[in-house]
């Protein structure tokens, strides 16, 4: 049977990508961030998840406003590394889990009435890859450690062109994912990653706005009262934490996928430039809700 064993909420700041690629992770400005992930990587190495479901948003790399899905799930054996306008990063392609994706699609559409857009090709970009970089090591070329140590399934959410799904809808999707994973007939360990945020605004005169107090409040609520946090409006997030902070609704999908007895393991916050970079993780040893 499928089991959700953990969840991680984390930011997906694009500048992290080149820092990884150019081996700058130990520079003073970046070390605090990467140090925070040392215990997370150790924890994941012990949990040994088979699959990571990565809830993220595409930043106009592979999805465009010509046709823009609210929720889109990858249903493929592998996912290419996308070019989001700055070239393709030198990363191994991502192995998917086709069988689990098909199961999730059927369970979510039939049993839980989430009318997903189902994608046989997705080129993944920083929204997906930065969280992968932070949580998992990867090898290159002919290394013995070639590729990623986990299969991954992208779940793309519209958080950039309003109307967006509500925070509660995102949470309910997480609850549905939990049930769908639990009804998977094979033994499989799954982690769910909710990515994006925290406070940031990247346009207008309020460019660079951050709100550390809001970010800590959000982390507190996410841990202690996720049901209550579901009532938050897009407007409240945008007003208090910046327009682009609305990505945070994707963390609620991760939280919705955790059981009531899940316990928080890691928590970290670092806000050097224009984005509050948060991290929170939950371990979950309950098979079903």
């Amino acid at each position, binding site marked *: 049977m499928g089991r959700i064993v953990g969840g991680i909420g984390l930011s997906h700041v694009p*500048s992290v990508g080149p820092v990884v690629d150019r081996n700058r992770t130990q*520079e*003073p*400005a*970046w070390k605090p961030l990467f140090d925070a992930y040392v215990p997370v990587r150790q924890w994941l190495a012990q949990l040994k998840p088979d699959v990571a479901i990565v809830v993220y948003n595409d*930043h*106009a*790399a592979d999805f*465009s*406003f*010509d046709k823009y899905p609210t929720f889109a799930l990858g249903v493929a054996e592998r996912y290419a590394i*996308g*070019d*989001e*306008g*700055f*070239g393709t990063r030198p990363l191994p392609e991502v192995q998917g889990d086709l069988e689990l994706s098909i199961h999730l699609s059927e369970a979510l559409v039939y049993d839980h009435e989430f009318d997903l857009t189902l994608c046989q090709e997705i080129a993944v970009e920083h929204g997906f890859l930065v969280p992968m970089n932070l949580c998992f090591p990867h090898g290159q070329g002919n290394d013995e450690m070639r590729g990623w140590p986990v299969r991954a399934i992208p779940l793309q959410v519209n958080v*950039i*062109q*309003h*109307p967006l799904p509500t925070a509660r809808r995102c949470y309910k999707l997480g609850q549905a994912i939990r049930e769908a994973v639990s009804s998977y007939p094979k033994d499989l360990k799954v982690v769910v990653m909710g990515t994006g945020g925290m406070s940031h*605004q*990247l*346009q*207008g*005169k*309020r*460019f*660079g706005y951050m709100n550390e107090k809001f970010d800590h409040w959000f982390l507190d609520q996410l841990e202690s009262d996720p049901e209550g946090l579901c009532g938050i*409006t*897009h*407007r409240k997030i*945008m*007003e208090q934490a*910046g*327009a*682009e902070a609305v990505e945070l609704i994707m963390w609620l999908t991760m939280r919705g996928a955790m059981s009531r007895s899940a316990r928080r393991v890691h928590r970290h916050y670092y*806000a*050097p*430039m*224009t984005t509050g970079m948060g991290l929170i993780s939950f371990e979950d040893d309950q098979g079903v809700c």
Partner: protein
Amino acid sequence: MHFVKLEALSLGHLCTPGTLLSVYSYAVLRPIPDTSIFDLRLSHRGRRLNKLCAALCSREEREAFKRDEEACMSKFGLSEKEKDLIRQRDFKGLIEAGTNIYYLLKIGSVTGNGLYKMGAQMRGESYEQFLSTRNYKDAV
């Protein structure tokens, strides 16, 4: 569902007078100072600009843009006003014209303007001034 008639609420460019929206939509779309809320109205306005930017996800298109910016802008049917915004590297204006921020990053990159340079311009500051407002400006 309760409805609010927007005519009375002076939402500026965001809504056509007389449009009916639910209370939830109204609450979302009410303007936030110094902030662009990228909704379908703005997306529709910026569709040509965003299409040009989307094309810049291909190396060939980036090279074509660098070779002949004017030809590239004409190919995507930009209006003279929109072309001027690109010619002048007016990032604030491009956002107001409906360019989504994540699309704007692509045109920034191809013209040698990273996010923080564009941001400084949008704030009306020099790059150095903007950096001095950050907690740790080396994290770039």
